[in-house]
């Protein structure tokens, strides 16, 4: 399952998409809207996505993760639009026969997502707003 959604993400639904009887480990990462950035109060977040490109990029991330951690299954959902503090912006679920592979695959998937998924985040403050870039994205620079 690879989706961009505009409503609250149902974590269990993402987990069910990767689960199978041979999987002894199901692991989900939930990214949540945080109330501060470098000491500044954040009131909410606004996410924007290039929807049509997100789905193929999510599949590429899955392929890269499975290439490095064979035998895992991966699903992910990213939310867009306005989020309140505490709401989930992203969920990545992986399933594997054993936990070590699940942890490795999940960490790799979120790192790749931050570097490659065409999604943008605006932090909203009491006195303004600004677009925030991932460190992983900045490393790529102009090609």
């Amino acid at each position, binding site marked *: 399952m690879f989706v961009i959604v505009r409503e609250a993400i149902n974590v269990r639904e993402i987990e069910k998409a990767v689960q199978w009887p041979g999987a002894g480990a199901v692991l989900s990462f939930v*990214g949540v809207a945080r109330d501060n950035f470098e000491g500044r109060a954040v009131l909410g977040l606004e*996410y*924007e*996505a*290039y929807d*049509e*490109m997100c789905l*193929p990029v999510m599949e590429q991330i899955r392929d890269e993760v499975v290439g490095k951690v064979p035998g895992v299954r991966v699903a992910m959902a*990213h939310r867009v639009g306005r989020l309140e503090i505490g709401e989930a*912006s*992203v969920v990545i679920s992986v399933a594997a026969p054993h936990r070590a592979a699940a942890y490795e695959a999940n960490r790799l998937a*979120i790192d790749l*997502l*931050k*570097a*490659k*998924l*065409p*999604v*943008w*985040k*605006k932090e909203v403050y009491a006195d303004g707003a600004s*677009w*925030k*870039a*991932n460190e*992983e*994205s*900045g490393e*790529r*620079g*102009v*090609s």
Partner: protein
Amino acid sequence: MKITVRYFAGLREQKGKASEELSVPEVACVRELYSHLFPDDKVGRMPVMYAVNHAYVSGDHELSEGDEVALIPPLGGG
């Protein structure tokens, strides 16, 4: 040659629109397109990535008729 350009985040706000259709010279590569659309200003020097028809490409990728080109500002997903 006609192409469609998609703008996102800060680039979308600067342009005041999310997309537009443009006629461009046959030889234009995506990096030249970016320089053309965002001449020498602060946002124009943002380290963008490029995508054509929903896949990342390098800056010297040449445009083709009907392409959908996206200028990808630094990402903030997650």
